[in-house]
């Protein structure tokens, strides 16, 4: 997928001015948070499950090679095929090869962030194959030629009235006078349009929430059932998944599933949890004739040996972005690539290069809400800070920020000079601001005063006032 992450600041400025987006983002803020909180409150062992889920993933990542090899052996034993792909280009080529070999004209797709990551739709279209998104949200954004703005709710940036207008513009074969004002009517219309496409598709492509090493299965969790139709109806099922999706056993899977839906949507369990293992067997009534797994690395094995390894525990529940005040302010598109929110701020620099996404890990107040709700206990603020350290070390930090920081550190590291200089500065500022108590403009503080006043300092510094009250002897008393 094409990235606009370098333009994060400009993207964010546009986003905060968009009244439609603001209305849509209210749903994220008000919907997901309360539902998750309620679901978690109903389950006393939630914290213990988080610890257990985290431990499973840590163990898996420590033995990833072993589990991947075991997984491939099981897939092969069931008659499927694993395609190891180092880069996005490798993965695109592997999918296209399969589609061409079977003469595919249309492919249906279940929701897959990996397909977004490798820009699969664009590649298929460029090669004369029509991809049809079957998840309602993905279908809507495909109509609009937009990327997803959220990893589990791709069209969360849109309001009902916008979607109605899109449907009227694109579904021109339907009566113009039809009623479409209710969410239910929009769902029904998408369902009718998609039903026909499901039956025509030659290949079904899904993502995977998990890959199970023990059985060689891929697992998807959905609420619409579109994933099942995508993978069962066509002759060929292709799973596109990244290599950290692996879990050792079905038992491990069941533990992680208990935290996934609760963290994501506040459901105890998703409506559909579908486990697929290989192609149709002779005794099966239905299923695909071919079963392929595109196993993508695309930078993950490099993360495995780095400080960013913890981010590979992510199960893509979206809780971090649902609870992120920055995401609430700018929405997902501002982040500029596939993964928005706090996890995006950690993953994007790892996957497309820090120089292409340096703003993302900086655009956080480190408020820590993401880490507090992450079911896999990923220390997201710490990982964002690691990126800032790499940015600083590689001299990617903007010059003005670097200069300002250097000047401040020069004083802060010289306490005596600092005390005198700051005392003089505060005296001056205090005198200037005494009459109003605050400044509405201040040189070099435009970032602050554009949107808020700067309270004036009281005038004397605490250190000076303390020294005056207690005498030099006592002020020096602490210096030992």
């Amino acid at each position, binding site marked *: 997928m094409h990235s606009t992450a370098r333009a994060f*600041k400009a993207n*964010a400025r546009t986003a*905060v001015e968009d009244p439609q987006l603001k209305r849509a983002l209210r749903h994220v803020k008000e919907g997901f948070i309360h539902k998750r909180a309620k679901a978690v409150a109903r389950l006393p062992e939630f914290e213990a499950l988080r610890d257990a889920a985290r431990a499973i993933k840590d163990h898996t990542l420590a033995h990833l090679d072993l589990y991947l090899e075991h997984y491939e052996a099981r897939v092969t034993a069931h008659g499927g095929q694993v395609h190891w792909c180092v880069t996005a280009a490798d993965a695109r080529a592997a999918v296209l090869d399969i589609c061409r070999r079977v003469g595919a004209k249309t492919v249906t797709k279940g929701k897959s962030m990996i397909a977004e990551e490798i820009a699969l739709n664009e590649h298929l279209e460029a090669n004369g194959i029509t991809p049809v998104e079957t998840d309602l949200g993905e279908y809507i954004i495909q109509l609009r030629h937009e990327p997803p703005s959220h990893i589990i709710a791709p069209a969360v940036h849109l309001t009902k009235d916008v979607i109605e207008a899109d449907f009227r513009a694109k579904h021109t074969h339907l009566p113009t006078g039809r009623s479409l004002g209710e969410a239910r009517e929009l769902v029904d219309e998408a369902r009718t349009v998609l039903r026909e496409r499901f039956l025509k598709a030659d290949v079904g492509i899904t993502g995977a929430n998990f890959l199970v090493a023990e059985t060689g299965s891929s697992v998807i969790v959905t609420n619409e059932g579109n994933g099942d139709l995508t993978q069962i109806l066509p002759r060929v099922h292709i799973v596109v998944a990244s290599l950290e999706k692996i879990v050792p056993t079905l038992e491990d899977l069941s533990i992680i599933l208990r935290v996934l839906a609760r963290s994501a949507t506040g459901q105890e369990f998703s409506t559909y949890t579908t486990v697929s293992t290989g192609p149709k067997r002779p005794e099966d009534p239905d299923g695909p004739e071919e079963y392929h797994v595109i196993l993508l690395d695309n930078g993950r094995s490099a993360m495995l040996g780095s400080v960013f390894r913890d981010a590979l525990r992510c199960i893509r529940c979206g809780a971090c972005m649902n609870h992120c*005040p*920055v995401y609430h*302010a*700018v929405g997902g598109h501002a982040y500029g690539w596939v993964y928005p929110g706090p996890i995006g701020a950690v993953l994007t620099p790892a996957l497309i290069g820090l120089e292409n996404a340096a703003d993302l890990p*900086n*655009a*956080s*107040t*480190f*408020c820590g*809400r993401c*880490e*507090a709700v992450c079911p896999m206990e990923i220390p997201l603020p710490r990982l964002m*800070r690691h*990126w*800032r350290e790499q*940015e*600083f*070390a590689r001299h990617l930090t903007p010059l003005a*920020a670097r200069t300002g*920081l250097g000047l*401040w*550190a020069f004083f*802060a*590291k010289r*306490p005596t000079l600092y005390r005198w200089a700051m005392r003089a*500065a*505060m005296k001056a500022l205090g005198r200037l601001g*005494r009459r109003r*108590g*605050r400044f*509405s403009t201040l040189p070099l*503080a435009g*970032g*602050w005063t*554009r*949107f*808020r*006043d*700067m*309270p*004036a*300092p*009281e*005038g*004397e*510094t*605490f*250190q000076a*006032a*303390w*020294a005056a009250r*207690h005498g030099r002897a006592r*002020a020096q008393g*602490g*210096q*030992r």
Partner: protein
Amino acid sequence: MSESAEPASSSSPRVGLFVTCLVDLFRPSVGFAAVKLLEEAGCRVEVPSQQTCCGQPAYNSGDRADAQDLARQTVAAFEGFDYVVAPSGSCAAMLREHYPALLGEDPRWAERARALAARTWELVSFLTDVRGVQAVAARFEGTVTYHDSCSGLRELGIRAQPRALLSTVAGLRLNELPDADVCCGFGGTFCVKYPEISNVMVSEKVTCIEASGAQTVLAGDLGCLLNMAGKLHRAGVAVRARHVAEVLAGMADGPAIGEPAPTSDNAVAAKG
């Protein structure tokens, strides 16, 4: 003033006040409120003059070397105290949670950083959790609301402590702030690096503050308070902002944050 207060004596704990750069520069009265609260909780308070800033601006900007230098400077300045107390959850969390990691690989400083971390407390939680203060004898007429600053809340678990002590302030009524646990948008350098985003966040906070029906918003961190007060003033919302220590110490008579000092000049200006 507090029920458990004991007069400071030679057996009283020696507390080093880490005043924090923002309190030192912008609002020294918060520092004096902290001193008063600590002394009334039976502590001997000293203020090492070699302190400047905890180093968060550098640490959060990826400037690890300067952050380490400032951590060493702070560790050295505060050795020998029984406790180190800061009127800020954010700065206390920096000393407590981050210094050990920042200096963990420096053989000469790792142990000293860990020792400092173990003795460091945020002011209000120190009063309640270490000194056992259950009540203050302060009076404050009016309805307040309390914003939970992020670091104090999520890194140090400070939530009940300020509410418990505020509930003992005579005349004070506490209205809970909707979304009290949501960041105000300050975030140190964040607010000037991403002013538009910060503005959305602090505007939301102002809406919640108004919805609380309080006349005063309190918090335990001056950074958040400068941000909220600045936005309240700019938006023309008549809610004052104060550090929680001012109210708990009974020292909330002076101008609130961003309000003019009561001088004869102002009296003339007001008439004019």
